[in-house]
């Protein structure tokens, strides 16, 4: 297991280095000078500006300096559009809302997707199965920049049940709530016997499940009560991922339920719940786990759209604005940061996968 994690870990800096180099090279390849575009400045001021941003040195030196600053001080340099703000300031302001939105969406997507997918597989061809799978196929095909405005149209503009947009910064309890929910679930599952007593995987799963459901319910309730502004964005962002996870989970479970070892488990006289929870879930959830990496990329990409639609002051919106106004330093900083987040999350997913599938772990 240790070697497996180590190998994954070594991969991380390489990916990040390639990402930074690629982005930096692209920006350097930009035709013209970034300052020549919209403002006419005197030669003197331009020289000053170039010195300030280090643009007077050769590209390779600039790259080295940038990389050095990022690695040693985690300093992404000054913004090119906002004179008195650094990229770090902007990211520091935007990361909170973005993470909160992303966490809400992921929790919702995983909780809904796993539950719907598992029920669909266990009650195959039931009304629930058909309904949820149709909904999932639909949810996967409708892009979130269509879902978002349509949700706004229905819930905010026509029905006026929820606010159109905005962000309530006072509210950032959600991650804490999720952890609390997990903790409660852990304690509760201690008392409930999942199948026969003793060592089993059932508890971990039941716990994860209960925790996710609790987190989802508490977050929805809290969102409704305290910060309804986040509901529509979170649902918009979660919908395609919930759909995909439901389908993956159902397919995974169906495949596993058809396996010989599930028949073996039934032949032992285990109850259907134990068969599903202990014997089928672990294999059935694997496709979902491998999908979580791409899903996080998708959530980050989706946040660009969702933050725009709902006017949430996150880094997604900053990134789009920076791209539109050609604030290269900010663009670069956000790309690197998102890349770092993705790589770290993928690492976590890989570790979880190795934890779930012993064949990989001992490879």
């Amino acid at each position, binding site marked *: 297991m240790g070697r497996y994690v180590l190998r994954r870990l070594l991969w991380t800096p390489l990916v990040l280095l390639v990402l930074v180099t690629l982005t930096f090279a692209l920006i350097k390849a930009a035709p013209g000078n970034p300052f020549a575009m919209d403002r006419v400045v005197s030669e003197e001021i331009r020289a000053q500006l170039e010195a300030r941003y280090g643009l007077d040195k050769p590209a390779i030196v600039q790259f080295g300096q940038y990389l050095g600053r990022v690695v040693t001080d985690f300093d992404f340099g000054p913004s090119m559009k906002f004179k008195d703000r650094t990229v770090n300031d902007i990211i520091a302001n935007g990361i909170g809302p973005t993470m909160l939105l992303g966490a809400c969406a992921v929790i919702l997507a995983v909780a809904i997707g796993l539950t719907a997918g598992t029920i669909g597989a266990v009650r195959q061809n039931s009304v629930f199965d058909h309904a949820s799978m149709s909904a999932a196929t639909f949810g996967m095909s409708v892009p979130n920049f269509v879902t978002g405005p349509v949700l706004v149209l229905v819930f905010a503009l026509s029905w006026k049940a929820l606010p159109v947009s905005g962000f309530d910064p006072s509210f950032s309890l959600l991650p804490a709530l999720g952890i609390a929910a997990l903790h409660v679930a852990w304690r509760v599952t201690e008392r409930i016997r999942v199948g*026969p007593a003793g060592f089993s995987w059932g508890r971990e799963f039941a716990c994860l499940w209960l925790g996710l459901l609790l987190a989802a319910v508490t977050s929805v309730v809290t969102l409704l009560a305290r910060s309804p502004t986040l509901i529509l964005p979170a649902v918009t962002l979660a919908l395609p991922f919930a759909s995909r996870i439901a389908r993956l989970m159902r397919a995974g479970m169906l495949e596993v339920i058809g396996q010989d*070892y599930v028949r073996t488990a039934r032949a*032992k*006289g285990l109850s259907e719940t134990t068969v599903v929870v202990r014997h089928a879930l672990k294999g059935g959830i694997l496709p979902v786990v491998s999908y979580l990496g791409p899903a996080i990329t998708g959530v980050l990409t989706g946040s660009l759209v969702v933050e725009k639609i709902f006017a949430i002051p996150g880094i997604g919106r900053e990134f789009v604005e920076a791209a539109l106004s050609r604030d290269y330093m900010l663009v670069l900083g956000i790309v690197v940061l998102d890349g770092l987040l993705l790589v770290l999350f993928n690492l976590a997913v890989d570790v979880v996968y190795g934890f779930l599938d012993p064949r990989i772990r001992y490879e």
Partner: protein
Amino acid sequence: MSSNGPLLDLRGLRTHFRTDRGPVRSVDGVDLSVAPGESVGVVGESGSGKSVTMLSVMRLLPSPPAMHQGQALWKGEDVFGWGARRLRSFRGREVAMIFQDPMTSLNPYLKIGVQLTEAVQLHLGLDHAKARDRAAEMLRRVGIPVPESRLDDYPHQYSGGMRQRVMIAMALSCEPQLLIADEPTTALDVTIQAQILELIDAQRRASGTGLVLITHSLGVVAGMCDRVVVMYAGRVVEEGRTEDLFGDPRMPYTVGLLRSVPRLDVVTERLVPVPGTPPDPQRLPSGCPFRVRCPWAEARCAETRPELRDVAAPGAAPHRIACHVDITKAAPREPASGGAA
């Protein structure tokens, strides 16, 4: 509990599968009984319904598509009338099953120890520590060295033969009254097959467990079973004590099967495979399903399907066949003409 009656008694068991292209009659009226402690071999080509029969008894076939008719009596109670709770106490505790492929029959995501202890904890009510001891003990009995340390290994760390040993340990751990082994050696190396069969035989004798051994190999049956049941196209076609059936086969299909197996005790000039192929269960021929391959087939074989009838001498153990023809009196046609159909 009637101690004299059979443990398992199948009466006219039918298992049909609903498919888009009409029902598939995999098991089409099987009568079969197993006495306590008895070992019965069920022999037949693939597709003859032998595995499906036993999976039906365990109620392990998902329904739909599987549809059951007839009765499967366990100590006089019909298995198909049971609720989920009774069924769970039956599976694993009263009847245990060993499957064909040990590579896929063990859960790759769970440690061997977990898979071995869960049934013991459920059925025998042992706590975790005792269940682990029992699991180690079972592993030792099936010949796995250092069992305590191997409990925490995963199935992929075991070889194929070892995994089948684990399956046997798992099946016997709750001391069932009947063990069903569904081609337990088919997926294994030839060198290991004999060891596994010996192990099953020794273990079940030691505990007085009944055995149903499903196989397509007559040789295996001869060494291990008290009684043999031959199945063809979803039905029993011949049934009798092993020595009767091997010494005096009366159903043409059994005759064909025996001729296709090399025997050490009889000098045969040549081996003759059974001509033709097993029939498609969706399009069975009229009358006796074997008639198209049968060298003794007569006109009446196409009209009615023969019922099982006892052909044993009065007073001897029953020997039943499903055949219109008395092959001790009739003469076969040339095998070639039989195979052409």
